[in-house]
């Protein structure tokens, strides 16, 4: 850590300026109140204060290497008492010797020099304590800023990793089953197999190419989900139906976090289609209300299959992601109506976020 007096020109001038001020006060008191001759007044003020001004600079090193913690508190106290004693002895000894040698012939001043030793011990201790406290304050503040910087960086890193983790959950079960469907289509319908390979590639490319924490338009996200559902439809045939109601002008261009909706549709497939022998419909619609994009995803499910409950991991991940991005944990709501599972998702629009941050 750099010496706080010598950080820049300003800090140097502030330090010496303060001492000049103290000298001025000292001089005025001696000259105007005690009515000493001008040369004695200047001498006394200069010798005493200049001396302490230099000690004050060197005190930094004592303070710097005596930062207290729980273990060494007594060490620190000892260091300071020792250095303070030394300072006082040297300061008082030297200043009295010098001043007495120069101005000793003035009897009143000579007596004053000797009589005010207790006062000097007091003043010197005060100077010492004030300077030490300022230094400690400085160290504390620098450490605090350092800590804040590290912590905010840490949070950033954490957020990044978390998002990557949340995002990279492409279900291996889905992947292998899709590959098996492709293997099957090469026998029955090679053209369709090729089409499915392309869809699967596009889907995977979309899933891995977007950076963590990036945004995309709802339209983009939906077309990727369409790809996903079309792949699943090859596997499940008529058992799976889906429809999207998107008003193009209002919703399509809205920016939403990449791959946010994917896990919701995966859930709908997993709990709806995987567990049911009946036809399952997945529907989504959207509207824009009060600065929020309101998305509604509904899927049928077989209530008897409730035994295979998920752990809610997918939903929790989305909630966590929304909380990190929008600092709000009320953006995802789920409910059940008969045999329909409903997810309501509110995504703040870009202007809405800015407005929130300003207020």
């Amino acid at each position, binding site marked *: 850590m750099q010496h706080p007096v010598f950080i820049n020109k300003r800090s140097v001038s502030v330090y010496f300026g303060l001492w000049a001020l103290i000298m001025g006060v000292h001089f005025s008191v001696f000259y105007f109140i005690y009515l000493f001759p001008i040369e004695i007044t200047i001498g006394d003020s200069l010798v005493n204060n200049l001396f302490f001004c230099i000690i004050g600079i060197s005190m930094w090193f004592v303070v710097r290497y005596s930062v207290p913690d729980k273990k060494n508190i007594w060490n620190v106290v000892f260091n300071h008492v020792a250095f303070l004693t030394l300072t006082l002895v040297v300061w008082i000894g030297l200043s009295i010797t010098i001043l007495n040698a120069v101005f000793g012939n003035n009897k009143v001043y000579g007596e004053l020099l000797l009589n005010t030793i207790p006062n000097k011990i007091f003043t010197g201790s005060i100077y010492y304590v004030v300077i030490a406290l300022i230094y400690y304050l400085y160290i504390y503040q620098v450490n605090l800023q350092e800590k804040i910087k590290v912590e905010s960086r840490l949070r950033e890193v954490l957020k990044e990793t978390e998002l990557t983790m949340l995002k990279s959950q492409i279900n291996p079960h889905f992947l*292998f*089953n899709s590959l098996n469907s492709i293997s*099957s289509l090469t026998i029955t319908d090679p053209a369709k197999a090729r089409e499915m390979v392309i869809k699967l590639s596009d889907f995977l490319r979309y899933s891995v190419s977007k950076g963590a924490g990036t945004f995309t338009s709802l339209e983009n996200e939906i077309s990727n989900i369409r790809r996903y559902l079309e792949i699943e439809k090859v596997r499940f*045939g008529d058992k799976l139906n889906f429809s999207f109601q998107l008003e193009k002008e209002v919703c399509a261009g809205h920016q939403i976090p990449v791959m946010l909706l994917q896990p919701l549709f995966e859930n709908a497939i997993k709990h709806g289609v995987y567990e049911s*022998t009946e036809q399952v419909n997945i529907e989504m619609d959207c509207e824009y209300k009060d600065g929020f994009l309101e998305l509604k995803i509904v899927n049928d499910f*077989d209530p008897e299959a409730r035994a295979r409950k998920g752990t809610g991991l997918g939903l929790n991940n989305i909630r966590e992601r929304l909380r990190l991005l929008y600092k709000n944990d009320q953006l995802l709501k789920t409910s059940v109506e008969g045999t329909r599972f409903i997810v309501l998702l509110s995504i703040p629009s870009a202007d809405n976020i800015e407005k929130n941050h300003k207020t």
Partner: protein
Amino acid sequence: MSIRTILIDDEQPAREVIKYYLKDFEEIEIIGEFSDGFTGLKGIQELKPDLVFLDVQMPKLTGLELLELLDQPAQIIFSTAYDQYAIKAFEMNAIDYLLKPYSKDRFAQALLKAIAIIGSGQNSPAPVQKLVKTLDENPEYLHRIAVKSRHKVSVIPIEDIVYLEAEGDYVMLHTKDSRHLKEKTMKYFEAHLDPSRFIRIHRSYIVNVQFIDRIEYYDKENYAVLMKQGAKLRASTTGYKILKQMLNM
């Protein structure tokens, strides 16, 4: 000789692959196709096939649950996309375990093994002991149990079970309003039920902690556990100790 074969898979394309690969084997005769666990189970019981191709992840009843409920063991070749079940499948003496997607060669290998076993009249292949052991070291707790009464198969969620009672070589599962006999041992359930929810309080009883109403002094050094639906079960000294620890008494 013809080998009567059933395909059980909820994905039609997956069944297509198997049918296509089977064309090369004249002795195979496909007598049924099913797309979920319930109808698959019924199919096996009615048609009594020589060989079954079985998917694991299916609606209603998984392939593994289906196997547990079979009266007479059938020759099974598993065909699934995910290998977390492989160990379990071998525990159930499956002939082979095909990971989707699989090649014609890999398929042929499994099928030749099946033909050899069925041809020799052998009941089932030797269990793979080592793999079973690995499963015991990584137990995944049950979250539902498939049971069968005379005409009906049902799947009981684990949270509906009040307690389990030893009944000879079987275990009786007691729910709030019904009881079901399951062909398993107490030891099996003790190992496969989540120990934070189910405690073995006695040689003959495993209780669901959620349904404990109160614990009463029974006679010297013995306690009885009263369940919310009314049952009064004896706890052994060790059982009582575990219970005490669990409930922080």
